[in-house]
């Protein structure tokens, strides 16, 4: 893989840093740029890069739950088909009563992503249309993708388990208990911590 010089990428970062306040950016590698912005800047930055910098293709939108630090990180991933650069726009949102401006008028497929994130993380997108339910049905618990949602507790409460599952935490031990076999050394080496 040939390493191009990163001039093109650096130019865009510099331009963005010059245009918006409170915007930090860096070049991650060739064809990858990352900028961090504030929550209230999201629509304006997205609009700007779409209209002026050629990032017209919306690739992906993600949300990362930083439970320990108390915020969600929203990541908008854009692609410029002309310059062939992927741009990651990151913004932090407070975990408590998380709400962000709706951006689905910029790219309408964003509506789908936002609906998923609303459902899975409980982030509220102000002014977004669309059904409340996207993937889950009749879900009455905490949004499941939040890290403080404990799936094991939930499944023990709701679902049945086949007998044998409960002692399956260490399968080999169980088997050896049942059959009296020796546990091979290889197996113990890779046992769970």
């Amino acid at each position, binding site marked *: 893989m040939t390493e191009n010089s990163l001039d093109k990428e650096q130019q865009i970062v510099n331009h963005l840093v010059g245009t918006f306040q409170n915007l930090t950016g860096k070049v991650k590698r060739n064809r990858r740029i990352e900028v961090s912005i504030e929550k209230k800047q999201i629509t304006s930055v997205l609009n700007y890069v779409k209209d002026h910098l050629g990032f017209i293709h919306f690739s992906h939108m993600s949300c990362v739950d930083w439970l320990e630090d108390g915020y969600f990180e929203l990541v908008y991933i854009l692609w410029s088909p002309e310059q062939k650069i992927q741009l990651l726009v990151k913004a932090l949102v407070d975990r408590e009563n998380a709400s962000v401006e709706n951006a689905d008028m910029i790219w309408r497929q964003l509506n789908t992503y936002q609906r998923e994130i609303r459902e899975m993380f409980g982030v509220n997108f102000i002014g977004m249309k669309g059904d409340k339910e996207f993937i*889950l*049905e*009749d879900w*009455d*618990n905490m949004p*499941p993708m939040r890290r403080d*949602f404990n*799936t*094991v507790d*939930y*499944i023990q409460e*709701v*679902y*049945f*388990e*086949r007998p*044998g*599952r409960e002692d399956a935490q260490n399968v080999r031990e169980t088997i050896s208990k049942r059959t009296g076999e020796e546990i091979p050394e290889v197996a113990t080496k890779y046992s769970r911590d």
Partner: protein
Amino acid sequence: MPNDKNSQKIVDIIKNAARKHSLFVLAYGTGCGAIEIPPTMTSRYDAERFGIRGMATPRQADVLLVTGYLATKTLKRVIRAYEQMQDPKYVIGFGSCTINGGMYWDSYNTIKLLDKYIPVDVYINGCMPRPEAVITGFIELQKLIAEGKADGATKYKENLDWYRANQKKVIKNWNMPDYNW
């Protein structure tokens, strides 16, 4: 109840022979196991040799093939499809995840034990089971039918309350028509 071969009447034997050789499978790919159904039905493995063919609607079908894990949302549809099928009807649980949740044992959205919700006649294990395994499963079902032992529908009818309780535990918004036979 014609539970063992000796108590089957001649009529039952004839009927079961026909049922065994003509299994209409409901075309419902509930999980990722659906990807091995096309190879099973098409030229390489050709399940039609055994009289197995796909049917579009539950009214016409005999066999409900639960191909893989069931998300709770799908479970509701599967129950509805199952209840719309006509007796005698059979269920084949396909893949490890129908047996004990398999890979998704700690997923909050998939059921772990299929036979708590609908009666299962035959399980096929594996993730995913090969087409040969699927066909073996069908042959196993055929044997059960011939012996008159594939009576899942009867069990379901008799223990409807128990099944309903289990189903309602998972499906919160229960708005299905009554099952009355």
